[in-house]
């Protein structure tokens, strides 16, 4: 342990602790801008500089480890003046039109300017306006807001290994951009939105669909249905000032109903359905021994990543659509039929923790119903904005259930939102499908939690199934490289079933979740989903009565011809240059 003082407060910290974290122990939060708790410090902004007695000059607290006997000062007159100067320099080249910024009130630069006490512009505004990149269906990039902190590049390249963003040009002309300046929509970007949730300012945000959804809600001729992903119910409360991970399923239904949706349904319903389809697929593959391991397909960021970087894994992918798209296909067929509504008048909206879902719903093959199955995807942030605009406060809502026939869900569905959840849910039902018996202890702890790659061996009545779970594309890449290796060397992989989620922590850490995310918060939200699972009377997907009714009345059985038409999909090979589908050779 290192002993040091921060502003005369004695602290002890493990060797290698940065001054920034050591100062927190003494109760001092040193202001920073480029630093993020989940990323390596890059040292771009210089805001966190401190003085250390006996060491000349100022040192960056984020990247200077606290040393034995250090006497650190964090807010001397020299430091405070320097910080102000730096913030003023940043503002000299920043679009400070805060009132019209998507990040207004949530902007780290705005907060910093207020903390260091900027009240005049000392320096001339410089730089020409750069074009806003709207080429992506998921993410908008505004270089005029960008402060070049590099967080987006770090998360895109190091955490996700996607490498869609890079620094171009130099000096004052430096910009962060995509290959050939072609825009995110013409790049290898997988739309995961991790750049968005890591951006301290308003340079990256989702392509909003709130105007379109308002229009549908206000149109008396439309029947607007809404589905909500599992991870939204442990996030939406935070949008309204509730503690991290607050579970608000019932309040969410109530607020959506009050917002004017004609039917408040559940992605969780189709999560249970996904398990029926994917679980049946798993049993088939285990029986035939072909195309193992089976790999999950719920995460559209992961799908595009796989289509771009792992063409040889396409046969291993589950053909089951994601719960969002299964819902979309059923809303305009089964639901319309049962409820007697013209499917052409149904507007299908989904609330997602995800920016890639916007891309997924616009994939041309996602029209099994004869219409675009899901019309609009709203992120948790967007639905929060709409609720605030309508004067709704989730905190104050009563608990209400979802509407019927696409609304019931089990505990197995709700844990889809946490990394390992799909795996756990699938095992709960696969056990039943194979053995005819129920799994006694449904909690499969080894696949829970936030380690990079999780493994477990599951005994299904004598058959041992080796499973692995990866969250973040970087971890997925590592795991799949291992699978490729094993297949090349031994003809088969040690794993039979793999779950991949594109985002760190799974959907609770998605790119559509509220601003200011970090791993600790993601973990807390995941725990809340497991709490909801424990609280529900049914915890196995195959016990969902509405799912059973759907098969009985409409789909016949899992993987039936009709199920295949509506609930399954196929994949493409994409270019590693622009992410576009390669023509079939």
């Amino acid at each position, binding site marked *: 342990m290192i002993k040091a003082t921060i502003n005369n407060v004695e602290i002890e910290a493990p060797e290698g602790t940065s001054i920034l974290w050591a100062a927190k122990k003494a109760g001092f939060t040193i202001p920073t801008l480029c630093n993020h708790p989940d990323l390596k410090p890059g040292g771009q902004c210089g805001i966190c500089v401190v003085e250390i007695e006996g060491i000349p000059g100022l040192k960056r607290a984020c990247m200077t480890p606290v040393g034995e006997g250090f006497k650190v000062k964090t807010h001397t007159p020299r430091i405070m003046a320097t910080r102000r100067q730096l913030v003023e320099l940043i503002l000299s*080249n920043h679009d400070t039109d805060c009132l019209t910024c998507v990040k207004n009130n949530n902007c780290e630069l705005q907060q910093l300017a207020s903390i260091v006490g900027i009240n005049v512009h000392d320096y001339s505004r410089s730089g020409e306006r750069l074009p806003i990149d709207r080429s992506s269906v998921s993410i908008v990039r505004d270089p005029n807001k960008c402060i070049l902190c590099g967080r987006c590049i770090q998360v895109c390249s190091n955490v996700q290994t996607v490498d869609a963003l890079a620094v171009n040009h130099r000096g*004052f002309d430096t910009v962060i951009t995509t290959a050939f300046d072609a825009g995110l929509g013409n790049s290898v970007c997988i739309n995961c939105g991790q750049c968005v949730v890591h951006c301290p300012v308003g340079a990256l945000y989702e392509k909003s669909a709130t105007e379109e959804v308002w229009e549908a809600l206000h149109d008396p001729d439309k029947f607007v249905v809404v589905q909500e992903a599992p991870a939204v119910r442990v996030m939406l409360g935070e949008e309204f000032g509730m503690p991290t991970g607050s579970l608000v399923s019932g309040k969410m239904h109530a607020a959506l109903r009050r917002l004017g949706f004609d039917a408040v349904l559940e992605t969780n319903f189709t999560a249970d359905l996904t398990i029926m389809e994917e679980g049946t697929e798993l049993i088939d593959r285990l029986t035939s021994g072909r195309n193992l391991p089976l790999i999950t397909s719920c995460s559209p960021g992961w799908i595009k990543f796989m289509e771009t970087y792992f063409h040889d894994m396409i046969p291993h992918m589950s053909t089951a659509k994601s719960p969002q798209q299964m819902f979309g296909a059923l809303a305009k067929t089964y639901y319309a039929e049962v409820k007697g509504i013209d499917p052409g008048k149904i507007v299908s909206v989904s609330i997602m923790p995800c920016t890639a879902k916007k891309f997924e719903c616009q994939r041309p093959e996602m029209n099994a119903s004869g219409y675009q199955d899901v019309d609009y995807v709203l992120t948790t942030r967007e639905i929060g904005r709409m609720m605030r605009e309508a004067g709704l406060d989730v905190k104050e809502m009563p608990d209400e259930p979802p509407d019927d026939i696409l609304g019931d869900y089990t505990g197995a569905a709700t844990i889809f939102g946490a990394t390992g959840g799909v795996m756990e849910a699938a095992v709960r039902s696969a056990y039943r499908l194979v053995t005819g018996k129920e799994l006694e202890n449904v909690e499969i702890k080894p696949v829970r939690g936030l380690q990079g790659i999780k493994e477990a061996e599951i005994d299904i009545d004598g058959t041992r199934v080796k499973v692995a779970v990866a969250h973040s594309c970087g971890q997925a890449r590592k795991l799949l490289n291992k699978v490729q290796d094993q297949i090349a060397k031994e003809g088969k992989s040690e794993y039979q079933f793999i779950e991949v989620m594109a985002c760190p922590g799974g959907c609770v850490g998605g790119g559509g979740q509220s601003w200011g995310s970090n791993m600790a918060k993601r973990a807390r939200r995941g725990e809340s989903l497991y709490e909801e699972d424990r609280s529900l009377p049914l915890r196995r997907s195959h016990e969902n009565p509405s799912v059973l009714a759907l098969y009985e009345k409409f789909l016949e059985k899992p993987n039936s011809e009709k199920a295949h038409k509506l609930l399954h999909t196929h994949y493409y090979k994409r270019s590693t240059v622009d992410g576009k589908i390669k023509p079939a050779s």
Partner: protein
Amino acid sequence: MMLAGYAVGAAKGFIYIRGEYALSIERLEKAITQARLYGLLGENILESGFSFDLAVMKGAGAYVCGEETALIESLEGKRGHPRNKPPYPVTEGLWGKPTVVNNVETLANVPEIIRNGAAWYRGYGTDKCPGTKVYTIIGNVATPGLIEAEMGTTLRDIIYEYAGGIKEGKKFKGALVGGAAGAFMGPEMLDAKMDFVNLKEYAAVLGSGAILVMDESTDIVGMLQSVLHFFKHESCGHCVPCRLGTKQLVEIVDRIAGGKGKVEDIESLVKISEVMRDTSFCPLGQSLNLPISSSLKYFRDEVYGRVQQPA
């Protein structure tokens, strides 16, 4: 370089040259090829059991790649952005391996010292700063060029003994010593001894050994302007103070040069360059305070004379 490789146990050396220096690259590559032919490079050199090879790596012309960690990044094929230190290159350098980075002048001294002994080398220069220094003398001198002089030689001797004095018999006004980010010096510094230790006392540096000599007709604000424009152009863009500071400095100095400057503009130059000195990520941005503060030290009246006087 081979001696350095032998000393630290390295088997491979890289010579990093700016891509624009075609002639240097051509000559070095020829020399390396010849050395290999004679068995002076490669496996088991002259049956000594020591193996060493050299490669010439071309830079893309970024000034910041003279900073050792940016140079290493560039060698690895990345953008020439400086790395955080520590770790220093001697513990984690090229491809994460311990790496020694030296400049040509340092390495060029080594064979002579080994051949003639340290005492011989110490015979040159001053007690605190032994040896010699290579200078590049440019500007308004009669015979610009490269010279090697003992440490402690005065600026006067360098200009008048080695470089033939000021061109066209004009008067000496000042010099920019140590490279683009060096210090301006006025006539009162002509008899200052030029060595690392002594110059430090005057808040100046020897730096690259470049000495830009200015005659009486030189406009000091114009000089400052070209220095600041150069640094704005060469800032890599990684850190806030250098990327945005150089831009502001250029706008301000252009204003002063255009006759539209105010006294506060001069104060801003100082203030911004001090923040850059204290918070820039690498020496490029840290060093700009020196030409600004030294120009005001030696040519204060001239600079203040160029701004609008308060009513």
